């Protein structure tokens, strides 16, 4: 059916092209940057701030089943996990385990 193939066209134009065009521009821009340049330092700072803005939004404004959970629970689980991570010599697995256990127990006990 034509209707079904149409979806693939939308994915190509509105998905693939709309995303890869930015990756290609990134290649063209990044290819001019010297590895030790000040410009690359700035680009790295922008990339880091951007990724962290996306990440923080996932915690503050989650979609799906976490949407109904209280904000304080998510902030506490993430915050305490991060503090434990810093104190424990920056073991990533420690942060992940601490935060997930806090969140899971919070969700479990708050569930009406």
């Amino acid at each position, binding site marked *: 059916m034509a209707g*079904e193939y149409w*979806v693939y066209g*939308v*994915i190509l*134009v509105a*998905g693939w092209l*709309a*995303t890869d*065009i*930015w*990756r290609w*521009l*990134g*290649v063209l*821009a*990044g*290819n001019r940057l010297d*590895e030790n340049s000040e410009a*690359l*330092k*700035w680009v*790295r*700072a*922008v*990339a*880091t*701030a*951007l*990724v*962290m*803005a*996306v*990440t*923080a*939004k*996932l*915690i*503050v*404004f989650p979609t*799906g*089943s*976490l949407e109904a*959970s209280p904000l304080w629970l998510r902030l506490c*689980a*993430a915050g305490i*996990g*991060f503090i434990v*991570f*810093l104190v424990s010599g*920056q073991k*990533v*697995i420690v*942060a*992940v385990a601490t*935060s*997930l256990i806090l*969140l*899971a127990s919070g*969700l*479990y006990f708050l569930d009406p």
Partner: protein
Amino acid sequence: MLRENEELGPSRWFLRGARGIFSLPALILMTSFVGFAAFALEAGISRGEAMFMTVMVWALPAKMILTGMLASGAHVAAIALAVSLSSIRMMPMVASLVPEIRSARTPVWLLLFLSHFIAITAWVFTTQNIGKVPRQHRTAYFAGFGMTLTLTNTALVGVCYGLVETFPPLVAGVLFFLTPIYFFASIWATSRQPVLRLAFVIGVVTGPLLALIVPGFDVLIAGIGGGTLAYLIDRFFVSRRGQTGQHGAAS
């Protein structure tokens, strides 16, 4: 040992990159894709479409927007605009990786092709690991990791589609939380320079705040504005002070 590493051929480095599929970030991303398979089914996207989207778009946030808007019957132009906005962030991510991946002889077409496999997880993994790879084999290493990660997740979406209709809310919630927590810890651990830690903190604080003030452009402003602010603070305060005295711990 370094010499021994340099003697390995490109195919060996490709395989070493591919082995990254068993790393923590790759495994966490795979759980997110299992979640995406469930979401695609719920949104009325077919198995073939969900797999096609995974291999062609790759960035998960862009795919969530695409799927959600397809399901709501939005106009192609509106979908393209929304996906574009969410994908602008690819540009600085790719631009910051390219100088680390390429060697003097890497052709541009190869970088254009490989850039397709960059999304947040690949960015984090590559930033962490590329330093250990000899310069001339970095493209092979990244190709191994990036392509394996994309193709494995495409297969995973195909296999898991319809397998899990929906997770129990507690499991779904914990799985969803896994990704941001992992990024928090691993990106902090990777960002050793003071300027990057400043950018990290500014991004975390301004991202959600700007989402309330300028929804839709929040991430862009937090990224470009926040990153620039971090750079300027570092340049005029932190680095200058560092030149006259010893740096404290970089935190």
